[in-house]
């Protein structure tokens, strides 16, 4: 990735640390103070506060210097973390731009003798995935459609994520039926075959039921 090498753009901003080079550990993301303590350790101690008082750090100038600004930085970081612009406008704009820039895929024949009626692969796939989603415990992932040589029929290949609380063959039958039904009744597609691949397990907690399309769900 073309992340700029920071060293090329601005001078070093590190605090000079005379003991650093003599430290055999060549610490990355840390530093040993002249008093022998690691900066990260001093920071941890400072954050722990009075729970673990340390006689050394109370008196050590190096340790005190190393934690200057830590408390205020931590507190201010929390405030900064909570500053988040609303993303709703951005999300809505992106979604409409993406819908305007549809990736349609290839054109498939609808089940009509003239072969003058066609439908975009992405649109069929969306409808068939939705049909599979309506089977409880099932979510469709990939759905590909391949036209046969005659150019009249298509083969459907779908991968599924399913919960394992039901026998798989029964699930597959249900999905097959739902997909065949949607092909015939929603689209009007001549289907020569339906290949289902169960690819991953769906966490039962996250898949409580079929896709609700009429607002009756909780």
């Amino acid at each position, binding site marked *: 990735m073309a992340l700029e090498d*920071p060293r090329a753009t601005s001078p070093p901003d590190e605090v000079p640390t005379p003991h650093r080079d003599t430290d055999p550990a060549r610490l990355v993301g840390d530093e040993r103070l002249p008093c022998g303590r690691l900066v990260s350790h001093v920071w941890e101690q400072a954050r722990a506060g009075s729970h673990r008082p340390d006689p050394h750090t109370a008196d050590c100038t190096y340790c005190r210097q190393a934690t200057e600004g830590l408390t205020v930085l931590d507190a201010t970081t929390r405030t900064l*973390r909570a500053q988040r612009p609303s993303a709703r406008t951005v999300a809505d704009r992106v979604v409409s731009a993406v819908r305007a820039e*549809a990736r349609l895929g290839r054109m498939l024949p609808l089940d009509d003798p003239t072969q003058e009626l066609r439908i975009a692969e992405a649109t069929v796939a969306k409808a068939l995935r939705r049909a599979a989603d309506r089977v409880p415990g099932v979510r469709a992932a990939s759905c590909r459609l391949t036209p046969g040589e005659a150019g009249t029929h298509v083969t459907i290949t779908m*991968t599924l994520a399913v919960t394992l609380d039901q026998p798989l063959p029964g699930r597959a039958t249900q999905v097959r039926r739902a997909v065949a039904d949607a092909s015939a009744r929603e689209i009007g597609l001549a289907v020569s075959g339906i290949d289902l691949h169960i690819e991953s397990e769906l966490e039962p907690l996250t898949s*409580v039921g079929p*896709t609700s399309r009429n607002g009756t769900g909780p």
Partner: protein
Amino acid sequence: MDVEHEGFSSPRGAEPPPFTGAARPGEPGAGLGDVADRILVARAAEGDDDAFAVLVHRHSGRLLALAFHMLGNVPDAEEAVQDAFLSAWRRLPQFRGDAAFRTWMYRIVTNRCLNVRRAQTPSLALDAVAEPAAHDAGGEPARAAESTAATAALAQALTHLRPGQRACWILRELHGLPYGEIAQVVGESEQTVRGRLFRARRTLMKEMASWR
């Protein structure tokens, strides 16, 4: 400035509430709010814009926050996130899923922000940056104003960090990403990330030391 305070949990806070879905029932994407990114990505890669819409709504909040803290203003941040999502939509068919979608998006947005910053003079993070010397220890309103001013000062200090350090610090301290994921996002080794984080923290502590 159009910034909402959404009350996010602190890094050491309680478990976040569960994600409750991205679409009302009956709308495109309804019922997909519970679906893992991986499955939505497989669908979106094949041109399913409903699936992509769920991903957009799921991730736009944190990505906009990233861009906002990287760039210091909302309009530039919005543009960076929009461009990143459109680029992702176009590149999804080639996305092989080696990394998580979240990491991939963080990476695209981070790159956009670094490129934006290279192309223009850095804009000031917040309009008014109060001088630390000006604060007096008063009552509640004074403390609130002071806290706001300190936050502005930190945002300003962020703009002075080297871009690579700034990215690492924001991803770690504001987004809570693990070092390994930050390394993937910025395309550097974990060691480099740790080094940058350390230097960023020291610089920011120095800048904030005059605030009590």
